[in-house]
């Protein structure tokens, strides 16, 4: 009789939010893999209803402390579509700058303190600092740069408050942004060094047959807009997202799981997808380093997402520097609008992948419907599929080692569990009527 092993990771570490993993193995076969998200539901889509649309960017920013800009950007673009607001090129440019800040703080932190420890067999960034104090200090400094940019442009280092429907409440003064330039020049070189460092890591020889999905824009590396591209399917308009992708409840998770509607298959969002689909649009320095370290695309090794993050870190610094150096305070800082009933959707690129928002508003400016699909919801099913493929390679180890290796794969996605939690839909079935 084949022995059944159950491996539990009660609480995933170095990921944002509360989640666990259950794996059931029977002999040499993987019987079940469940990424269990048990963080309590957060009700954002529900309590946005009836609220003034002006509150949406600040409320949705509260979904996450590390990617609030992604929520703000997706929200304002969707609401501006609903209200038929056309923003100026200056506002658009400053939104990209804000997004650069978020990518810098998120990628800098994840690469150095959350993911790098996995390649050196240590439990945390604190332990890693004993071996690599300079590298850990660098990661902390990069994170701080990102937060400083968010503070200068967004008004606060975490949960910025300067973003509004139509633009920004206030355009920063020139010196408020220019004083960041010396640090960002240092940061660009540090990002190059960081990417060279992570490229030397020893990566498992493991590839998955991914359906990589990200935004794609004809002229720029995707952040705030574009069409939805895929490594396996044709490009679609963002407006068609809900036709091609579906979210569903699973019993073991308070987070919805997304899949490609036509085949009910998983897909992969995040830096690895973005770099694969948009490598030619990376900044010159990022492209140069990608060539230097031999980062070949297509790359379907999830562990190498840390290199993709490094390339995006370089890109974010280089683009931010360009904008900072050319910055001139702009007017108007926001486009006025009048209320009208309408509906709009938008997708942007959070540090950990594509994020989709849709809102309906009434003619009094109140939210009638809100739908938010964060990246981690979209990656959950893919993570489970990856683990099914990864487990036969690692399951001969003892349970603890197997669990640790599962966690390493999960962390390569930089999952944000807090972002992804939804309330389970309640279906009441009354029998006998």
């Amino acid at each position, binding site marked *: 009789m084949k022995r059944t092993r159950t491996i539990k990771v009660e609480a995933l570490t170095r990921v944002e939010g509360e989640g666990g993993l259950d794996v059931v193995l029977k002999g040499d076969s993987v019987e079940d893999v469940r990424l269990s998200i048990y963080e309590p539901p957060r009700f954002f889509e529900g309590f946005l209803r009836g609220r003034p649309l002006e509150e949406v960017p600040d409320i949705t920013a509260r979904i996450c*402390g590390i990617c609030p800009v992604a929520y703000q950007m997706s929200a304002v673009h969707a609401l501006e579509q609903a209200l038929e607001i056309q923003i100026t090129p200056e506002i658009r440019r400053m939104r990209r700058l804000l997004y650069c800040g978020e990518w810098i703080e998120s990628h800098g932190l994840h690469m150095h303190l959350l993911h790098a420890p996995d390649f050196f067999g240590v439990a945390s960034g604190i332990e890693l600092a004993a071996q690599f104090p300079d590298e850990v*200090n660098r990661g902390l400094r990069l994170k701080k740069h990102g937060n400083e940019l968010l503070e200068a442009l967004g008004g606060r280092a975490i949960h910025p408050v300067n973003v509004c429907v139509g633009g920004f409440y206030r355009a920063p003064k020139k010196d408020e942004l220019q004083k960041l330039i010396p640090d960002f020049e240092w940061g660009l070189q540090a990002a190059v060094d960081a990417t060279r460092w992570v490229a030397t890591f020893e990566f498992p020889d493991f590839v998955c047959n991914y359906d990589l999905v990200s935004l794609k824009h004809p002229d720029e590396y995707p952040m705030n807009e574009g069409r939805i591209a895929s490594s396996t399917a044709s490009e679609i308009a963002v407006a068609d997202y809900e036709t091609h992708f579906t979210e569903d409840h699973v019993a073991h998770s308070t987070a919805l799981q997304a899949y490609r509607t036509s085949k009910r298959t998983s897909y992969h969002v995040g830096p690895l997808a973005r770099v694969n689909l948009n490598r030619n649009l990376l900044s010159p320095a990022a492209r140069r380093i990608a060539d230097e370290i031999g980062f070949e695309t297509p790359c379907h090794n999830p562990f190498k997402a840390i290199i993709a993050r490094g390339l995006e870190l370089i890109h974010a610094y280089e683009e931010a520097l360009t904008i900072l150096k050319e910055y001139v305070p702009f007017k108007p800082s926001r486009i006025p609008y009048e209320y009208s009933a309408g509906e709009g959707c938008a997708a942007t690129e959070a540090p950990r992948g594509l994020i989709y928002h849709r809102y309906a508003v009434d003619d009094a400016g109140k939210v009638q419907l809100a739908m938010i699909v964060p990246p981690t919801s979209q990656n959950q099913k893919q993570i489970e599929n990856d683990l099914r493929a990864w487990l036969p390679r690692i399951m001969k180890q003892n349970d603890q080692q197997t669990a640790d290796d599962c966690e390493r794969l999960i962390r390569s996605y930089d999952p944000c569990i807090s972002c992804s939690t939804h309330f389970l839909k309640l279906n009441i079935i009354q029998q006998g009527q």
Partner: protein
Amino acid sequence: MNVNSLSPNIPSQRLSIPESNDTPENVPVRILIVGVGSMFGDDQAGWLTVDRLNELLKNNGGVPPVSVTIKLATIPLDVLDWLSGVSCLHVIDACQSESAAGSIHRIEYQNLTDILDARRLSFGNHSTHDFSISDVLKLAQQTGKLPPQVCIWAIDGKHFELQRFLSPGIAEAIESVAQQIHSELCSQQ
């Protein structure tokens, strides 16, 4: 003596975001006192303690003859940037442990890990968004930034919701910690 007080003299229960508190670069810092906190109920304890300490130093009619810098932090990681040249660090933060609200834990850094375990004491922030003050101090040690003398004053809180009011016992603990740090500063004259 140089007291570089950068927080306004606000009476208890402030519920406000700290003022900017950059230290002038030409001021040598020997003793750094950091109140870590937020606007969430008992988590104001760190901020309120350094506010009270400011009052005590000003009412003293003078200040200790050593360079003292007092700062407020909302993001514990910021403390890492303030440690250059510091010989003695006092950190005040709210915590949760098995003790009653208002309990005070004076912890020398070298005993930190043991005491966190023994008293099931936590400074929160179990997330990737930020690091707790205990994690920040461990990072400082690993990266060679930790001052020779580090003392953590942890005040047990009970309610950490967004509210002005403090749980019973917290105000007394704040006064006690401020008085004790003040006495230690004065004893260094």
